[in-house]
């Protein structure tokens, strides 16, 4: 059985770690988090226009590097992957998804899904659908269009959110929980089928997360 992936999220602005102070090189942060037990690093960047820092981080790490950014062109997507990003993460409506999956392989393309619990069930907001869309229906479409993984954030988290993870576990592709950083809801999502969790780096180290989640019986990588 695969280990549940424990992935810290690092926010990057203009090529530097947001709020990083003197130690603001993304490569330095990523290497420290790897030493602290991270199974991969997820960078949330304000731009994909400058792949220089991605190249530096990718060349320094021995775990995967995923990049979530506003990809404004095919060239930016291509440059990020060439610089060493293992995976690019697209936001809805994920217009480049199918072409990217066909060109680079679906392993390397994932999509963020923001699901909100409404009276009619779990919904996602889409630019093309003002009334929103059923979350499971949208995730099935993303699977068909070539997504290699879904990064799912539920609002609310916790018991209600766990129900959506349980349903999403029936998809043929992996689903990662985008966590706010609270232990209990993250554990609920993982126990209900999420293949891993991404959390804001800072409060707990990856190893602290692993200790806490391992104590709940989840399979983690030592």
């Amino acid at each position, binding site marked *: 059985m*695969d280990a549940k992936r424990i992935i810290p999220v690092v926010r990057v602005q203009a090529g530097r770690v947001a709020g990083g102070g003197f130690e603001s090189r993304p490569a330095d942060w990523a290497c420290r988090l790897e030493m602290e037990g991270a199974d991969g690093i997820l960078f949330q960047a304000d731009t994909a226009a400058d792949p220089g820092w991605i190249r530096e981080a990718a060349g320094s790490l021995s775990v995967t590097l995923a990049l979530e950014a506003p990809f404004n062109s095919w060239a930016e997507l291509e440059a990020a992957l060439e610089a060493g990003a293992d995976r690019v993460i697209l936001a809805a409506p994920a217009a480049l998804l199918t072409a990217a999956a066909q060109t680079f392989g*679906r392993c390397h393309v994932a999509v963020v899904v923001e699901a909100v619990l409404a009276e009619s069930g779990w919904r996602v907001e889409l630019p093309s659908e003002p009334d929103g869309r059923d979350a499971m229906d949208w995730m099935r479409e993303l699977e068909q269009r070539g997504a290699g993984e879904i990064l799912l954030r539920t609002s609310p988290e916790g018991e209600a959110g766990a129900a959506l993870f349980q349903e999403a576990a029936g998809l*043929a592709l992996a689903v990662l929980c985008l966590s706010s950083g609270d232990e209990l809801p993250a554990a609920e999502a993982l126990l209900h089928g999420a293949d891993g969790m991404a959390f804001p780096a800072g409060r707990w180290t990856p190893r602290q997360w692993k200790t806490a989640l391992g104590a709940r019986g989840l399979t983690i990588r*030592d």
Partner: protein
Amino acid sequence: MITLIHYGTGSLVALEGAMDRLGLSHCRAARPDQAAAAGPFVLAGSGPMDPACAQLKAAGWWRELPQLAADGRAVLGINLGLHLLAEGSEESPRGTGLGLIPGIVRRLGPGGKVPHWGWSPVRQQRDHPLFPEIRGGWLFFAHSHALEPSSETLSIAVHGRPFSVMECRGRTVGIQAHLEKSGCFGLGLLGKTLAGLGGQPEPELNAGSN
């Protein structure tokens, strides 16, 4: 000197970084005439198989690599590289592989999510004098297809069904896992594997150790 075959399929940045950390001397070669005069070849890559085959053919590698292997040069295929070294793949039913490693690459599943992107425990099936044991270790995988294991397979993992993690035929080696993405454990394995295939330290490190 390790020659990294640069054929435009997947980034080499992480692999080069790993070799730098291991102190191994390496170069990129887009065509066979740019390869180092000695030392192993590394055929990495990821993504769809057909464009990869086309690019290797266009650059002359498809013709030269089997001859180089027959002449005794070591070849290490990683991920898609392993698939290309095999006899064929379900991903490209009308094509054939380089045929340096027996077996057919098949799509993963049923029983596991595809693509497989994650850390799996690896089980050693056979020992080999050149390569380290990988009993009980976790390695990172990113793939939708894998080589069917055989009695010759050195190590396996399971994702819905067992698949081959490491193959060795003479001086041709194939590894499904991304050792360069598998933490300290993977990095150590990569170093020992490349050392077993004749990878050399950077000259200055050599000099420093004397």
